């Protein structure tokens, strides 16, 4: 396969969204927004029409994860609520709701490969597991001392991996809830003035469960954050850091999302100071990326389609920043939006 992605088109949105994921059946794209909404597009329809959203969450919906076999979508919001949906229904309704899964911001969700557990982590420093069937709590993994940003299961389902805002990555035994080892990603963290900057923004394991990718940035300052976007690649078994991929300049900031393909190719998106966004394909052993595009502004999420060819990148409209008053022609305050850019690997 040539690694020369062609842009297929853009789906404009009237609002900002961040996490986007394609359903395993390939028919739908879901994205979590800033006003408690989970938006849904029918990819089989002409021009991918937007369908009725999944309503009921509050705040930001950052956690999206699918059941591997059933048409179930799990979503989580920044008010601590976890929901399970029959995502293909015409008028989707929650199958179950866990109203107080966390105290506040749930940062990430992951579903176990056997489909039995959905794991969550959040600002309350907790990592928890829930039954996908009824949302009942199953396990709690205690040990993080700070905001837990991201988590993922190992392909064999034995381990859960979670990373926090200080660059601490823990490898948990799913069933005993013991922390078996840690990965040192503290290079993705800095303390600037009185701000904790950086942290583990994304975790991914390859299909074989051999390599753990930890994405984020090496911060040089807080406030208007500056960081060199970075992916650390660890041997999952030994914990040894094998590769450090620095994917840009300080203004490119964070790797917000990444995919680790079976051939170990890292596909990452970055978002930096307003306007700066990158899509990068890089092999761990290479000095330079195979592909780099900085045409899109502020890329926050990337989702592969199950067809293995298409993928979508959540970016931001150009000119998204600026001090002071700016109004549209009708005198309304101007907000931003997140164009969804579809690509195809040729």
């Amino acid at each position, binding site marked *: 396969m040539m690694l020369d992605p062609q842009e297929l088109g853009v789906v404009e949105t009237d609002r900002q969204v961040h996490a986007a994921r394609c359903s395993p059946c390939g028919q739908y794209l879901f994205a979590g927004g800033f006003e408690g909404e989970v938006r849904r597009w029918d990819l089989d329809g002409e021009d991918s029409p937007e369908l009725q959203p999944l309503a009921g969450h509050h705040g930001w919906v950052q956690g999206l994860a699918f059941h591997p076999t059933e048409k179930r979508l799990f979503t989580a919001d920044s008010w601590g609520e976890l929901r399970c949906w029959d995502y293909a229904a015409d008028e989707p309704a929650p199958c179950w709701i866990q109203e107080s899964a966390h105290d506040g911001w749930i940062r990430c969700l992951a579903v176990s490969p056997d489909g039995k557990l959905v794991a969550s982590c959040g600002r309350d420093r907790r990592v928890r597991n829930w039954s996908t069937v009824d949302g009942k709590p199953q396990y709690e993994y205690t040990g993080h001392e700070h905001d837990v940003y991201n988590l993922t299961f190992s392909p064999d389902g034995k381990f859960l991996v979670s990373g926090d805002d200080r660059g601490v990555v823990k490898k948990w035994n799913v069933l005993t809830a013991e922390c078996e080892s840690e990965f040192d990603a503290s290079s993705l963290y800095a303390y600037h003035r009185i701000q904790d900057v950086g942290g583990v923004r994304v975790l991914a394991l390859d299909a074989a469960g051999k390599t753990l990718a930890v994405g984020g940035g090496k911060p040089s300052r807080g*406030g208007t954050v500056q960081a060199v976007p970075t992916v650390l690649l660890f041997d999952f078994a030994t914990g040894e850091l094998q590769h450090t991929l620095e994917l840009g300049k300080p203004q490119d900031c964070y790797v917000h999302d990444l995919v680790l393909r079976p051939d170990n190719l890292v596909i990452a998106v970055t978002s930096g100071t307003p306007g700066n966004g990158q899509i990068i394909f890089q092999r761990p052993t290479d000095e330079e990326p195979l592909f780099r595009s900085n045409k899109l502004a502020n890329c926050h999420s990337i989702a592969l389609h199950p067809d293995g060819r298409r993928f979508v990148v959540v970016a931001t409209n150009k000119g998204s920043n600026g001090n002071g008053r700016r109004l549209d022609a009708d005198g309304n305050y101007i907000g931003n939006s997140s164009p969804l850019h579809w690509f195809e690997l040729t």
Partner: protein
Amino acid sequence: MTNPRCKTWEHHLSRRHLLGAAAGATLGAAGLGGLLHPAVAGELKQKRKQVLFIWIDGGMSQLESWDPKPNTRFGGPFRAISTSVPGIQLSELLPQTARQMHHLAVVRSLHTQDNSHSAGVARIQRGDPKDRGVTYPYFGSAVARLLGPGNSGLPPYVWVKPGSGGFKHQDAGFLGPQYGALAFGDGQPPENLVKRNAVSDQDLEDRDRLRRSLNQRYAVGRPPRNSEANDYVFDVAQTLMQRRDLFDMESITARERDRYGRNDLGRDMLLGRRMLEAGVTFVKVNSYGWDTHGDNFNGHASLMPKFDQAFAAVIEDLHQRGMLDDVLVIAMSEFGRTPRINGHVGRDHWPEAWSLAMAGCGIQKGLVIGKTNDTGTFVDSEEHDIGHLFHTWFRALGIDPVKTEYNNDGQPLPIAHDDCHVIQEALI
């Protein structure tokens, strides 16, 4: 042809002399020399007022603090929480402050003029008065001038901050350098604060007496300003030497330091409280690094708890010590942050509609003043510029902001913007 806003050479030159004449009264006792209408002098003497001014440099987000708009387009991820005052909610990033809400007045209707840091910081702290061709004093210098140093022997305007210390006389504007700030950097005492072993206490006393005697003789027939200003800095130096304990963090219990937070802001807030207890008239506590154009929400998730902890602790402590009725506490930035969330998941500068909190001396307790619209983009009540706040603060300190004027070389100057007025509902 003379431009009325521009001073002639006479103004510039005579300023020093007038300052000189005023210096004795002002620096010595709580004098009011140089004020055209010292109508409030008697009132001031009754009870000593102080100010704690907490400056959050770079711009705290009103939406992540005092004016949450949860679950709206620009509201961000955080929830609003209840406070000790029924019906008033704050961001969930202020849990400890929420328990002190019954002491606080939150203003949600700030509408100011400048969206740049470089000009905005000074413009806000000088009260953004009408341009009369003079550089107005910062609030700290103004209060130092209007309330005087008291009898603590410490300078009236102290600035506690991370980084370097020193004397920052630029804050004083036309009031003259002696009303500048004495800055303590990184919680450290100034250099050379410890008496040398070879010099006995008796030597110190003798030296002081001999020096004063020389200065008195020298001052005969000369403008008094230089000698008095020089005596004053030696007096302050001696007081600071005696009050070295203020900087001795080891003497503070671990529990107390934990309560304020083991970070720069916690340390400085605690030092600020000790300065107030020692009698300093105006204490500015400064936090830096709030200009969250990028990663605003994780930034505030990290920054706000440090503010919350230190701020709630100082409010509680001042209250418990019975000081809050006489200490005006203000927490603010140079502007708020844009409702719009930019591509860097940050918020930019927003003077259009933002918030501050205040408490204590003369300020109404447990209320919110003004409101913004549902999405927090604009003020949906009377807008309040910094000039309104200056009027309100002066009034809270017992200074009539309309009748009291500075006397700058015979040029009367209002102490707050003449087109603004007191926010009545903020006052007791």
